[in-house]
């Protein structure tokens, strides 16, 4: 097991190097001179030279790359062009907001997805199953930024309904923007979690159906084990293995998907930082944030692989 973990960590090293090269090259792939891009149109030649000198753009590319990586490892990701603050400080201030958003959304998605998937699988081909699967298909097909806008419309602004509609009359329950209080958290979490909930529900259903069809479940039933115990203790336990992988991958995907959600709800996390920095052409911040997000994603995938191995001792990933 420990051997596997060590080997798996070693395997991520080339990926880390590749990711850092790609992120580093970003600045140099932008058409035009990076120093000119940073200084802006029509900046005096002297200022451009200054920037070039300060960023070490006169060095050969490999030297520049090594410098970038050496300082990145020490936590120095450069300076923001916009605010003049350290990029790592800019990211640090927003990192936990995005992680929180992704964690809450994952919890919601797992909760909804598992319940819906189990209900669907145990009532195969009934009206309930069909309904759940159609809802899941919609959840999967909805752009989350649109869902976010619609949720703001319904539950933050409120919509005019005929007065005979009970309950839904004054539905401005939550806050449309920001992050922190409960009323600010609800809508972004639903927005981000819905797509993953749909994927987990579909995965749970098919995984459960595979297991329920297997011989040992038939044996358990033939022995007269209670149906509830068959489903939850025997079937779900084994069906969970592929689900764990999907959940892990979803969590990583949510970190990226947070870009759109944060933009819709003006949540001040890493996603919004990227968008704002792209618009301001603040490349050091874009680079740094993309790097941090990818590192987090790689780390999550690593944990998922180890957890998968831990849960399923039969498989051999070698």
């Amino acid at each position, binding site marked *: 097991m420990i051997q596997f973990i060590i080997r798996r960590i070693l395997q991520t090293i080339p990926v880390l190097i590749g990711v850092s090269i790609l992120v580093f090259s*970003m600045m140099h792939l932008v058409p035009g001179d990076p120093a000119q891009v940073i200084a802006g149109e029509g900046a005096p030649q002297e200022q451009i030279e200054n920037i070039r000198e300060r960023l070490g753009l006169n060095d050969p590319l490999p030297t520049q790359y090594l410098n970038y990586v050496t300082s990145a490892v020490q936590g120095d990701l450069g300076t923001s062009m916009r605010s003049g603050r350290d990029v790592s400080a800019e990211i640090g201030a927003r990192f936990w907001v995005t992680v929180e958003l992704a964690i809450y959304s994952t919890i919601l998605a797992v909760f909804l997805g598992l319940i819906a998937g189990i209900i669907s699988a145990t009532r195969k081909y009934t009206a309930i199953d069909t309904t759940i699967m159609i809802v899941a*298909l919609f959840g999967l*097909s*909805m*752009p989350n930024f649109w869902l976010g*806008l*619609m949720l703001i*419309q319904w539950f933050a602004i409120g919509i005019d309904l005929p007065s005979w509609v009970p309950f839904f009359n004054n539905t401005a329950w939550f806050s449309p923007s920001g992050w922190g209080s409960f009323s600010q958290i609800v809508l972004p979490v639903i927005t981000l979690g819905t797509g993953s909930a749909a994927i987990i529900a579909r995965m749970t259903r098919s995984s459960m159906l595979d297991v329920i069809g297997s011989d040992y479940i038939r044996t358990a039933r033939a022995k007269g084990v209670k149906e509830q115990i068959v489903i939850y203790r025997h079937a779900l336990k084994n069906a969970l293995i592929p689900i764990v992988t999907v959940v892990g991958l979803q969590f990583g995907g949510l970190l990226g998907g947070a870009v759109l959600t944060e933009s819709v709800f003006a949540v001040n996390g890493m996603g919004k930082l990227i968008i704002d920095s*792209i618009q301001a052409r603040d490349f050091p911040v874009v680079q740094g944030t993309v790097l941090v997000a990818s590192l987090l994603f790689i780390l999550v995938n690593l944990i998922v692989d180890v957890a998968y191995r831990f849960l399923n001792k039969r498989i051999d990933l070698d």
Partner: protein
Amino acid sequence: MSRSNEHIEKPEIAVKQPNPRLKSWKSVFNKLKKNKSAVVGGILIILLIIIALIGPYLTPYDPLYDQDVTNKLATPSSDHWFGTDNFGRDIFSRVIQGTGLTLMIGFFSILLGATAGVFLGIIAGYYGKRIDSIIMRFMDILLAFPSILLALTIVTVLGGSMVNVVIAVAVSSVPIFARIVRGSTLSVKKLEYIDAMRALGASDSRIIFKHILPNITSPIIVQATLSIATAILSAAGLSFLGLGAQPPTPEWGAMLSDGRNYLYNAPHVALFPGLAIVVAVLAFNMLGDGLRDAFDPKTRE
């Protein structure tokens, strides 16, 4: 004399074997017809294509230039089925006009991404060893960026335009095709008939394109259909963020981005382009699900 000739010809026609590949395609199509999800998805896609082709000639207003400032942000009515936007343009006409754009972005980005991915995957799977590990490590690097972030980064570097969105979405779809195709190639490569072809002296490229590729088309088709759905979502997302299609273009994501500023007084502006995206993505997801079931040997009866 003529009689005996007829006699000879008849059996010849009867002996002609039906192409086995054609036969298996027919059986897939027959199963597809019985799959509700596939039928609904397929019909929706055909409808969308028809709308994209002839819709722009039938729209009541010009999607760009019919601006009626006195009637801006009007709610849906018999004149303007989906209402008007902040410039007084007819949203219905704009949504119709955007159908073709969306389909084209989805189709071309996946055509590009799938071609590259299939090529890399088949090379990696067929040749193995060094080439395999180099290609697949590179795919791992691309996969190390969270979903939309890779596309976002590429668009940032290339600049925001529709062509660049297609390129960005294409690049981010390459790894999944490479992985799937590599896996299928590995399993097909082991079969005896490939060894037989090699013993007969067939060249690598002949084996790859004539004997391996035709046998791994089904997972590629399924993945391509599902990927078009994802591509439409990503492209709309990029345009929504202002990094794709630029404002006057009636692209659905860009229209949503306009609509978000008028949620308080004109909610319909954001409603309809979003619904259009849902329909398009739903159609490809449903067809993809149906295709997967139809191709799945477990359900073949």
